[in-house]
Structures are given as structure tokens and as C-alpha cells.
């Protein structure tokens, strides 16, 4: 279980998070939606302490990760897999090496086993035979899928997906969603998904939360979320410019 308690974060004099409180249930997928620039990526980066809050706590299995020391912090991060918004592949190495990278650096897996596992993951994301290419030679969607393969290669307990389907065509988006569900069912990880692809993303989510005006305005099981009378939720789902969410 991950709990976020009263999280505040600002950059300069821009207040991004203004007291976020929420929970992520173990073994379930929770999706965070919200307008562009509302701070979803910032919130996600607090979950494995890539960013530290100005105030507030993040509890992973009741350990406050904002207070950890360097060594414990690295151990804790090893339990997470992260798919970054821009994939964040290391562009000095091939796709294969990128996916193999955490295995080579963090485990003593033999090279044959690594090859086997990496090829399996690449196949799962539909990139079989592409391992020899460099990130710069891939389309945005292909990079995203390679990033997904890397996020899943260590069989993490918790996986953070920052917009896994943004920029993909609808067919591919659906197949990535199916991949997330399938791997989630196989490995049972706790999933945190940030996504704009509504309503499709609701099909893979157990819970949905909406981040607006720096706080979590609503967090409910998916069905209840969709029928929530909360004006923030309704404004977002219908895509209206008038309402309680402040847009530019």
C-alpha cells in the first residue's frame, strides 16, 4: 500500500501540489487523470522519491520514503518500475541494451538468461527484432513501448506509468492497455497510471483519481468515479471549459 499524506510541492513561486492525500491499493491499478500541466508527473515522481516534497509524506508499506537515507532509498527504488512520459531511454545504447540494462547492472543474471528475458519482453510490447536499433531511430510510440519493456523487465512490485498511451494510435493504445492488464494479472504489481486516454483507460483501472487545483478532488472505484456527481469529475469527463477546474 502506498499512501500520500498532505503533500505540498512548489517550483519557485508556482504552487503545484497543495496538500495531496490519496492511497494506492496493493495489487490494483489506480489511474490519475487531470488537465495538462496540473502536476500529475510531479506527483508520480514523489512516489519513488525522484522529487522530495516541501511538506508531507509518502508511505510505502508504512515506511516514510521522504525520510530514507541514501542506501535505503536505492533499495526502495529497486522495487519500482517506471515508464517515463518521454520513455527516457538511454540514447547511448541500443533498445536491447536499454531493456537489459537494469538486469546487467542490478542482478547477476547470466547473459543467456538476459537475452531470453529481454527478447520475451520486447516481443510482449511488439518490438521483436528491433533490439538492434538506437532510441533515436524509433518513432515516439515505439520508444514508449521499449520504455514499457524496460519498466517491466525487473518484475517490479510497483509500476508507475506516465502516460503510457499518449501519442499512440487507438489500436496500439488498446494493445498497450491490454498489455498492462495482462502483465498486472501475471505479476500482480501495484499499478499507477497517469493517462489522458479516457474513457478507454477506465477499462483497465480499478480506481480513478482526479488531480485538479493542486489536490485530489475525487478518488473512487472506476464505476463510481464515472457516475460521480462531483462537478470537477463531470467537467473533466465531458471536456468542458466552464467549471470548477481552472484552465488558462
Amino acid at each position, binding site marked *: 500500500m502506498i499512501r500520500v499524506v498532505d503533500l505540498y510541492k512548489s517550483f519557485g513561486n508556482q504552487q503545484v501540489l497543495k496538500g495531496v492525500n490519496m492511497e494506492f491499493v496493493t495489487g490494483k491499478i489506480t489511474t490519475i487523470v487531470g488537465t495538462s500541466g496540473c502536476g500529475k508527473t510531479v506527483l508520480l515522481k514523489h512516489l519513488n522519491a525522484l522529487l522530495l516534497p516541501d511538506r508531507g509524506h509518502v508511505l510505502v508499506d508504512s515506511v516514510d520514503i521522504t525520510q530514507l537515507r541514501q542506501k535505503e532509498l*536505492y533499495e526502495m*527504488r529497486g522495487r519500482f518500475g*517506471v515508464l517515463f*512520459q518521454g520513455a*527516457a531511454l538511454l540514447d547511448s545504447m541500443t533498445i536491447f541494451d536499454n531493456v537489459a540494462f537494469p538486469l546487467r547492472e542490478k542482478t547477476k543474471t547470466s547473459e543467456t538468461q538476459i537475452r531470453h528475458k529481454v527478447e520475451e519482453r520486447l516481443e510482449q510490447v511488439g518490438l521483436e527484432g528491433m533490439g538492434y536499433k538506437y532510441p533515436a531511430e524509433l518513432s515516439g510510440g515505439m520508444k514508449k513501448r521499449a520504455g514499457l519493456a524496460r519498466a517491466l523487465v525487473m518484475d517490479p512490485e510497483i509500476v508507475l506509468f506516465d502516460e503510457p498511451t499518449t501519442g499512440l494510435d487507438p489500436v496500439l493504445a488498446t494493445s498497450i492497455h491490454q498489455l498492462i492488464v495482462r502483465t498486472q494479472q501475471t505479476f500482480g504489481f501495484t499499478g499507477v497510471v497517469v493517462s489522458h486516454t479516457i474513457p478507454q483507460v477506465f477499462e483497465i483501472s480499478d480506481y480513478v483519481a482526479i488531480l485538479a487545483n493542486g489536490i485530489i478532488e475525487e478518488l473512487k472505484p472506476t464505476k463510481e468515479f464515472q457516475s460521480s456527481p462531483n462537478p470537477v469529475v463531470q467537467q473533466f469527463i465531458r471536456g468542458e471549459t466552464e467549471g470548477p477546474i481552472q484552465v488558462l
Partner: protein
Amino acid sequence: MLLFLSRIGRYTLSHLAAMGRMFLFLLSALALSFRPPAKIRLILYHIKTIGVDSLSVVVLSGFFTGMVMGFQGYYSLRKFNAESWLGSATALGLLRELGPVLSAFMVTGRTGSAMAAELGTMRATEQIDALYSMAINPIKYLVSPRIIASLIAMPLLTAIFDVVGIYGAYLVGVGLLGVSSGSYFSGMESSVVFHDVYSGLIKSVSFGLIITWVCCYKGFHAPPMATGVSQATTESVVLSFVFILVWDYFLTAIML
């Protein structure tokens, strides 16, 4: 007036804090460099990018620096009828001062700026965050191998610069201006002592450290956008030059 003073105070404090951060960065990078496991492959790769890629520009600038020294040395020495000391004057100048400093400048421009740009891009495209999230210390992975590589490559490049420079001065002095070849080398042999070579070596090693430190720090902490990367690159080059010259002054004063 009070406002003015508080502004000065804040300015000073923020600069002091920045210097402190930079120094901590150096300490942690150094500590991680000498903690196993050493990344041999990465170190070799960076020796290639620092050493081999800067080789041509170091050779070229060494050659022309030497030739200029041939002319200038001849001009000044002739005033004292001491042209035969051209060899020793050139060798001392190159070994003790110009070799380390100028080759460090060349490496800053050729490789240091590229380091800042590369790390800055990695910051902007979240690759550094990705390393953290894979529980890999990016300083150990990105900065430490570069530091070790520069400690190895920099003195070698300086030695090449010195040799090429001495040869360049020989071509001008002996070939063009008619200094005798024998006195060029015998003068060098009798006046250059091991301490001269050694002090040049110390300088080049420490300049190598300064370059990787400053350029990696600037790249690592570049603001995550395109202008941030270009700004970090420029700042890293300027700051490296300044640090090299200031540090050179202190080293010279100590080791003279």
C-alpha cells in the same frame, strides 16, 4: 539602503550555496570513482572520447604554439646573444606552463563542452531520473568514469602537446632561423630537470579533474530545457577556463 544590503546578502548567500553544492558534487563523484566495481568499459570509452577525439586538435595547436615560441624565443634571446638557449627556453615554457594549460583549454572546448551538453540533454529528457529510478547512482554511472578517464588521458595529451611543440620550435629555430641543432638539444638537456616535467604532470592531472568536474556539474544540473542545455554548455567552458587559470596560479606559486 537596507533593501540594497539584503539584496547583496542574498546574492552572496546563493552563490556560496552554489559553490558548496559544486564542491559536494566533486566529493561524491571522487568517492564513488574509487569505490568498486570500477566500470572498465565505460572508462575506456571515455578515454577514447577525451583522449583520441581531442588528439588532432591538441597536435595541431601544439605544433603551432611551438612554432610561435620558436620565433618569439629567438627574437627575445637574440637581444642577449643567447639564441643557443632556444631549446631550453621552449622546453621549459612548454613543459611547465603552456603544454598543460593550452591542452586543457583544447580539451575543454572539444570534450568538456560535449560532456555538459550530453549530461544536460540527459537531464532534460529524464534519462538521469530514469537512472535514479532503476536504483543506479547516475553520478557513479555518468560522472565517475569520466573523471577517471580524464585523469588518465589529460597527462598523455599534455605530453603529446609538449613533444609536438618542441618539435615545432625546432623546425622554426633550427630550420628557418639557423640556430644550431646541437645547441638546441644540448641546452634543453642541461637545463630541464625532472621537477619541470613533474610539475607539468601535476598540473595536467589536476586540470583534467577540473574540466570533468565543472562540465559534468553544469550538465548534470542544467535546467531541463533546450536553452538550459546551451546555457550550461557555455557556462561550463567559461568556468573551466577561469578555474584552470586560477588553479594554475596557485600551483605555480607552490611548486616553483
